[in-house]
């Protein structure tokens, strides 16, 4: 812009602000800091911030701000040109114990032991794809950072580390090609999920029966873990204070929510067919959000002949943030019951859920995400938020902005009729076959 600026950031985000400014080409940007947090403070409390010191420099905050705009630039601040970036040598040689320690200390792992990516194991992994080792697979960033790029060989290293068998590699490559990182910088501690569809579920022996979401099958466990290792190693995500700010973190980040759809027991069309693929295609679909909750916590969840799963799901949704969508994971018994009750397509069920999961405008406006994301959209005239913000407080509006925000997949062992629901938004579906 060519106009001097003084960015103000709260102290809790000091490292993030300084590092992100540097990565974007201004390593000496004059960032000023206030105490943390500003949120929830009275004007009198904030006035004390303004009249007090910058908690990083210790100097009076307003003097810092005025100086940031008026003190002449140093030679360093006027610099232009390119700075190359190194991540160290392409390989390391040592004993297995020392290498495990090195990988741990360098932040390459999820703090669990890894399979060391020896040349032999990486080569074996790469033989499971027709793509060249040096072929660029994609770019990834764990938030609003300049993305990193990576090739087949670099993806293979994380796949080996996660414990993947070579035959899993095309799925790992498909996930990598999406550019979606499973670790995200937000303070909200995001969770991520993937849905696997197609014949590859049986060929690789994914578990979509009893314990479908649990640690009971190698592809479910290791491919999910590979996504997080890739997010750390290929996308430079998961560095607390720098590229990760989740206040509490999320246990699902260890290997994410991996769902192989139980297509044979699914009374509706498989998820990938809904997205325009053929049934015989192998596809991985990715989701992002906050986590998964069990249907048993919903009102009216007692299992009897009158159980109303549609009302259960609607009840679960009422606690969800509308910033993300909903992903219903229905045991086949639940799906069969819903079909018996007249929901002969997924669309009929999602349409009912969209129309019947409502909230008052007053409740909606009280939600954090509404103020942070939807209110600015409403001010800009974006729909449906602009209309929602003009309605009276007691008006009822849908919980989610669009019916397409609600998705359904079928998985589980049919030992009981329980659904689970994720506050998760659909992102993208990627062909696995393309990476074979």
């Amino acid at each position, binding site marked *: 812009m060519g106009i001097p600026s003084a960015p103000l950031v709260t102290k809790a985000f000091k490292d993030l602000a*300084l590092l992100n400014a540097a990565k974007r080409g201004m390593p000496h940007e004059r960032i000023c800091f206030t105490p943390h947090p*500003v*949120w929830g403070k009275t004007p009198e409390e904030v006035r004390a911030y303004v*009249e007090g010191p910058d908690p990083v420099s210790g100097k009076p905050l307003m003097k810092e701000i005025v100086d940031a705009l008026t003190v002449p630039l140093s030679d360093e601040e006027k*610099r*232009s040109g390119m700075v190359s970036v190194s991540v160290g040598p392409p390989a390391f*040689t040592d004993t297995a114990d020392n290498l495990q320690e090195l990988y741990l200390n360098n932040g390459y792992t999820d703090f669990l032991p890894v399979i060391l990516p020896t040349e032999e194991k990486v080569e074996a992994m790469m033989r499971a794809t027709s793509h060249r080792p040096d072929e660029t697979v994609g770019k990834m960033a764990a938030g609003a950072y300049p993305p990193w790029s990576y090739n087949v060989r670099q993806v293979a290293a994380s796949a080996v580390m996660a414990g993947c068998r070579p035959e899993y590699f095309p799925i790992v490559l498909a996930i990598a090609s999406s550019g979606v990182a499973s670790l995200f910088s937000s303070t909200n501690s995001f969770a991520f999920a993937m849905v696997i569809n197609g014949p590859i579920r049986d060929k690789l022996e994914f578990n979509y029966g009893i314990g479908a979401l649990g640690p009971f099958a190698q592809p479910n466990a290791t491919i999910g873990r590979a996504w997080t290792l890739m997010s750390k190693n290929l996308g430079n995500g998961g560095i607390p204070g720098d590229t990760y700010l989740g206040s509490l973190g999320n246990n699902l980040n260890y290997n994410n929510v991996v769902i192989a759809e139980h297509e044979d027991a699914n009374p509706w069309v498989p998820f990938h067919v809904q997205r325009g693929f053929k049934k015989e295609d192998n596809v991985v679909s990715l989701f992002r959000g906050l986590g998964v909750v069990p249907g048993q916590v919903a009102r009216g969840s007692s299992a009897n002949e009158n159980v109303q799963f549609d009302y259960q799901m609607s009840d679960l949704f009422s606690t969800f943030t509308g910033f993300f969508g909903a992903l219903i994971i229905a045991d086949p018994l639940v799906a069969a019951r819903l079909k018996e009750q007249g929901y002969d397509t997924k669309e009929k069920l999602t349409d009912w859920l969209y129309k019947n999961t409502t909230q008052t405008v007053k409740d909606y406006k009280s939600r954090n995400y509404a103020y942070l994301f939807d209110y600015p959209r409403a001010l800009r005239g974006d729909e449906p938020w602009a209309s929602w913000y003009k309605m009276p407080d007691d008006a009822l509006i849908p919980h989610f902005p669009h019916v397409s925000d609600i998705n359904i997949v079928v998985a589980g062992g049919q030992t009981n009729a329980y659904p689970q629901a994720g506050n998760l938004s659909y992102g993208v579906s990627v062909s696995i076959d393309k990476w074979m």
Partner: protein
Amino acid sequence: MNRRKLLSLLGMSPAMLATSKAEAQQHKAGPARSSSSGPEKLTVVNPKGTPPAIQLIPMAPRLDSLNGKTVFLVDTGFHGSDVLLHQIEAWFGRNMPSVTVVFRRKAGPYMEDDPNLWKEIKANGNAVIMAVGH
């Protein structure tokens, strides 16, 4: 910026500062073997991706002073940003009354660009104070 931060900036773990037992070497064709009495040594792949080079951006020239100038206060939309910026506006009124202060809320959620606002500031402003992260 200290060395620890610089390493992090460069996509390298600060742990690289510590003396590692592992010997960083260039790529070798196969596993290296130690002497018959020592443990076997392995050669493993560095799993990191490729970070982009950084294009350094010269900072905008500074003003001689703020006296008589117009300063835009830009609210990113984070909770409390408006309260903070209005207190800064009041501080200018009490302490530097010759400064004209213009308050603007950036359009759209905090992570979205607002090129129209930047055009307005470039046309009518001399400096920007933008706030805030949480």
